[in-house]
């Protein structure tokens, strides 16, 4: 009998059946890899165990190898961050012109009298590039020349839950994989000892909104591509700690015994799941060591803690999480997503923005500087932004949700540094120049990772689904 050829095997079965089940082994999604491999020069080249991605060859030149998405959950105001609108300030407390708002979807301002609210902060130009940044963010301003600020973002979803879903998956329909899952599926991770897509959460004092594990779901992709949330209490990864009364060496004995007995079963039963299981136990045991080592920030030198503004290492703060993000990036994690829940300022905008800025400003800038000094900023794509923006109209002491215009910034990983892209109208109500919608942002991020967004897809309920749905265009203006 000829040696088992996985390519032949995969092609010999119905494609969908293969995705569902392959009795003789091969992780289900190998097919995508194999069909890609057909176009590659040398099929079947050996690589270390584990998932190396559905793409054998990148579609585009690879600029970024990993993504760190600093999600400012709740939707920070663009008017107090990156979109300076002097005319709005001049109109402060005056009725907001109806020509802008008639027939538009509003959230909590439904049926209310609309008044303009100007920025309560000052803006200044920073760096060689002279990007205007609010005074609330002096540290971020200090790395202005590394930033690519997008002022013309738009989204389709005006409520937190669905807006996060849209920002993460490009859809509000359940079952769509999140961006991190797509990246892990497409590219694999450069670590086999840690999950390839890790999520960290922190919370501020004002404007908290809930966040769901759905946001890092792998949806229709196998669950091994889902984001793994690191917990700030207890074990960083669920069940990564040994039970009380079981030390590392006795645990090792237990795991080795499981491996031995599973090996015996594998000898007598032809079931490829057994060999996969053995590999997973090995990986699990490695994680039991690597995760505590990874999350032990006390090993970081004091000046590093000071750079990020970490008060208590591992305290679950955004600063601590940023430092952890850098350590994850160093270890080859493909996508690191930080949520900072602090930005839903329907009221107390001033207190809320100041507090939120204090939480994130220094650590965000520190992450950029730190990656830069390690030579990692070039291939690390950072995205900073919320799930939507805020209204130029006031809502009591705050601002309502807004989807027609908001700002995000990117840094590193092949983005055009020291630039701004797009613009809103005079009052910041609507993105009017070089509009970037969420699909465009996704398409561009994937392109920087070497992926053509229309060619990274999977079958789900009769459709080829992809991160960008049926839309999305790469925005060259954001790329270096």
């Amino acid at each position, binding site marked *: 009998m000829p040696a088992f050829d996985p390519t032949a095997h995969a092609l010999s079965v119905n494609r969908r059946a293969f995705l569902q089940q392959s009795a003789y082994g091969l992780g289900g999604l190998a097919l995508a890899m194999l069909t890609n491999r057909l176009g590659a020069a040398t099929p079947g080249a050996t690589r270390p165990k584990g998932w190396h991605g559905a793409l054998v060859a990148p579609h585009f030149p690879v600029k970024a190898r990993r993504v760190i998405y600093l999600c400012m959950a709740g939707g920070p105001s663009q008017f107090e961050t990156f979109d300076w609108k002097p005319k709005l300030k001049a109109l402060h407390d005056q009725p907001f012109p109806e020509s802008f708002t008639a027939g538009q979807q509003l959230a909590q301002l439904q049926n209310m009298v609309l008044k303009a609210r100007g920025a309560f902060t000052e803006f200044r130009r920073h760096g060689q590039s002279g990007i205007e940044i609010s005074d609330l963010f002096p540290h971020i301003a200090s790395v202005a020349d590394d930033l690519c600020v997008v002022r013309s973002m738009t989204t389709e979803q005006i409520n937190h839950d669905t807006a996060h879903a849209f920002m993460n998956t490009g859809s509000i329909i359940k079952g769509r994989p999140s961006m991190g899952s797509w990246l892990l599926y497409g590219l694999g991770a450069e670590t086999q000892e840690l999950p390839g897509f890790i999520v960290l959460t922190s919370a501020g004092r004002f404007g908290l909104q809930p966040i769901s594990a759905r946001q890092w779901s792998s949806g229709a992709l196998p669950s091994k591509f889902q984001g793994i949330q690191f*917990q700030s209490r207890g074990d960083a990864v669920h069940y990564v700690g040994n039970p009380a*009364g079981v030390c590392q060496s006795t645990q090792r004995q237990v795991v080795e015994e499981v491996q031995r007995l599973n090996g015996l079963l594998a000898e007598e039963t032809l079931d490829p799941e057994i060999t996969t299981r053995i590999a997973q136990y090995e990986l699990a045991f490695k994680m039991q060591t690597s995760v505590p080592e990874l999350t032990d920030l006390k090993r970081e030198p004091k000046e590093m803690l000071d750079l990020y503004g970490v008060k208590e290492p591992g305290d679950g703060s955004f600063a601590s999480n940023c430092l952890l993000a850098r350590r994850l990036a160093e270890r080859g994690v493909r996508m690191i997503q930080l949520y900072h829940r602090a930005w839903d300022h329907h009221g107390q905008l001033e207190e809320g923005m100041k507090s939120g800025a204090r939480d994130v400003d220094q650590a965000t800038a520190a992450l950029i500087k730190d990656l830069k000094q390690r030579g990692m900023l070039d291939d690390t794509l950072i995205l900073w932004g919320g799930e939507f923006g805020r209204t130029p109209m006031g809502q009591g002491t705050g601002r309502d949700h807004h989807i027609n215009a908001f700002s995000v910034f990117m840094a590193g990983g092949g983005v055009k540094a020291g630039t701004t892209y797009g613009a809103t109208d005079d009052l910041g109500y609507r993105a009017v120049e070089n509009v970037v919608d969420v699909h465009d942002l996704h398409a561009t991020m994937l392109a920087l990772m070497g992926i053509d967004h229309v060619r990274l897809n999977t079958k789900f309920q009769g459709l080829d689904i992809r991160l960008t749905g049926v839309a999305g265009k790469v925005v060259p203006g954001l790329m270096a």
Partner: protein
Amino acid sequence: MRSGQLLSRLAILAALMPAIALAAAPRVSFNRDIRPIMSDTCFHCHGFDAKSRKAGLRLDLREEALKPTKNGVLPIVPGEPEKSEVILRINDTADPMPPEEAHKTLTPAQKELFRRWIAEGAPYEPHWAYAPLVRPAVPAVASAESRAARSDHPVDAFIRAKLAAKKISPSPAAEPARLLRRLSLDLTGLPPTPAEVAAFKADSLRDPRTAYRAQVDRLLASPRHGERMAVWWLDVARFTDTVGFHGDQNQRIFPYRDYVIAAFNANKRFDAFTREQLAGDLLPSPTTEQRIATGYNRLNMMTREGGAQPKEYLAKYGAERVRSVAAAWFGSTFGCAECHDHKFDPIKTRDFYELQSFFADVKQWGVYSDYAYTPNPDLKGWSNDHPFPPELAVTSPYLVARRERLLGEFASLRSSLPEAAVEAWVAEALSHLERNPTGWSELASKAALSAEELRGADKKKAPAKARARPAPTSLTLLAEPGRLATLRLEVPPVPDGKAPGLLRLTAARLRRPGAREEKLEISFADASDKEPRYADGAEVLGISTGWRIPRADTPRSGVWQLAVPRLLAAGDEVELIFAAAPPPGLRVFSSPLAASDPLETASAGQLAALRTAPGQRTVAQRALVADAALFAHAADRSILERAQRLAARIRETRDGQAWSLITEAVATPLELRVLPRGNWQDESGPIVRPATPSFLPGRRESTPERRLTRLDLAEFIVSKENPITARTVVNRLWAMLFGTGLSAVLDDLGSQGELPSHPELLDWLAAEFRESGWDLRHTIRLIVTSDTYRQGSSLRRELRDADPSNRLLASQNPRRLEAEFVRDAALFAAGLLNLRDIGGPSAKPYQPPGYYAALQFPDRDYIASDDEEQWRRGVYMHWQRTFLHPMLANFDAPSRDECAAARTVSNTPQQALTLLNDPTFVEAARALAARALAAGSSDATRLREAFQIALGRDPKATERDSLLKLLAAQRDHYRTNPDDAEKLLRIGLAPAPAGDAAELAAWSQVARVVLNLQEFITRY
């Protein structure tokens, strides 16, 4: 798989595997060979969707494909491939079809298939799943094996016909122990007991077929069968305990789960099951059960997010319902049709909205709250803690039984009180009653302090004098000497027109001269008159966290029971601190009496019982007196605490009453329109009324005179004309029993799905299912009694190339257990699993702390069940949509945001970590170890016991030797580290048996190995 299909695929491989010779090819079949290629590569531009159609060409209809196009070319000329434009273009390198930008390519083999198909006359066939269901003839099986086995089983006939054509022989039957384990796990989700295995082995020696049939009957009749089937259906029905959007609040709907389990246990006909869930409320004089079933229509995700537009969310709910109903009953994916006609299936946008409009009468709100910006008069004052109406109040048999059990426990606790102690207390109480015949003494007020003064006092500052005194929030009272067990607060009348106030007693303190201030803990407080308050979606029991005082013309009282009664002396002071100033005129009374229900304190009945001489008390009076003594007297603190805990649990059963989300029909259904591109703000689309999908036979439409209802939809689904529901259900049952469906894509039988491996068998089973009276149990019995099902599951190396996915079923498939059954198997092996109860509220197993930290509105805490509810089956686990229990999530249970007809089966390090370290599994291992230890005195006997319990077999010599070595090492470790042993044994709620801790710890480690084995979590 048809031989032609296989050959065609082998042909695809020809370039890669030249060694494989091609046999003479049979005729090309449109459904089998051509439609999948067209669906994947052509229909996007040349299919159903008129909007995306290019060159005016459509290939999905034969007559269209034969017509000349706009350019005057003939796409398909039957019999003449060389004249067919389709063939020219797919071979055109300069201007190929599909075009480059589609990123789809045809292989040479696919091109050849196309050519041959046209050469053979280009015959079309309707899509198999939508074609009328006609029962095919059972093939006559000529194989020697079948004759030898005297099998005339129709399932085997279909399977063997194909195997025989490929000259493949089926596998022999699995050996009895493994077979019973398979059957037991498939039908009940639980492994067999060692005794069951032994009995079956013995019976099999005599007459294997009869023995096996007896096991099938036994397991199908087991109440565990309903729980097993419910795991399947609850995925389909997207059953959860929380609403899913935003704050993901709790919803009350566990009686629906009880209904589903009971339906399977009663083998309710699937047509009735369908009718009741979709339209039980529309049946004539619906029963409570039928109304509970309509909870199905309410299991869509819901929101309460501030700023959400009610209309937008109603559109979201409606769209989800279409997707879920279509996935559940039609095995079809309607999702795309929300915005455009389906590109690959004949599902039109109009179909989507017509199906949605069947549900336009379901009473619901877009936003289940009342905000200033989106006022909702129906839910005035609703908060994030409120339920999600409409609901039905029902009696839960589980809660009734639990209450009875707890009352029994309480009675035995009561009877454990020494009579002398009771009578001594009665004597004391009677002397008090002589002075205070009502049982209550009013406490004189000493001082009242405002909140500001309280804060000032805390900081040891004098209160500000100059300002007007704010209303006091602290009351200091002079205590009545004697026993203090209960406090009663009486508030003056709240006249009509005045808003009811909220009285919240935040702390009570006791000050004695010369002693440190003591906190007076309250065990429970209640009032007979109170406005309801809600927390986490349920009405708050009692008033411990606040008393919303109702409007009334007379004074009202609330009663606070102390956790630990105190003996007070003259000069002692009681200070009460309130969250806000209590109503002026508040009076405070104290009593030395108490009762299991605080409202019974000093009631006429209690006083009469106390005043009756011991020998003359009735049974009820004896209980009243003993209860009073129990709660009013802290002589034995451990008994008092147990009594309080039991009383709390009894209260939480709410007299057996529960609530369940149901469907209520509104008089005027919402007007629904086709939403252009799914945009809810666009009202330009045509108005639609209920109609069944246009692509299915037997379409029913509303007329101007009669609007179709949900009941009409249900009737259509279970009608003879509808072919797809029976196919969908039977295919899923097959997947449950073989790991893969006959059509592998369980959630899409449409053209993007898969042609079944055995289309005739699927149709035969579907027809049998329908004609048997939609009898699920009959269908399952039919499948599991086939030889095909009973085969060994070891894959066969020699078939790896001929049938890599084992679709011909020359053997069974191993199947990893679903998340719930992984848990059940471990707890079952541990002897911890609760197998007494069926149904009831969701239980909360141990969960890592802080997991709900990112949940808000309201903030959530997860409190693990702290009694036997900890060990309920996985089907009863609390299902939090946004943060599914990590054990469930790690083992691929879906969050059930929408219909989930198929679970992925992954194999991840998280699963290993769960089995190794989740306290549920560590506790289970310890309990399994204890069972093994109890089985005998030799290590070999004990190991054998553990294997028999967990795996239904003896350890092999290699396994035994290896495990005993591990045991010795662990024994050494725990003998030298007794603290570690203690720590390990303390994990979990179940008490570890007394005895040699090191020995039990060492065996626990061995048991952990067993519970981590692939064999343990797989049904082979």
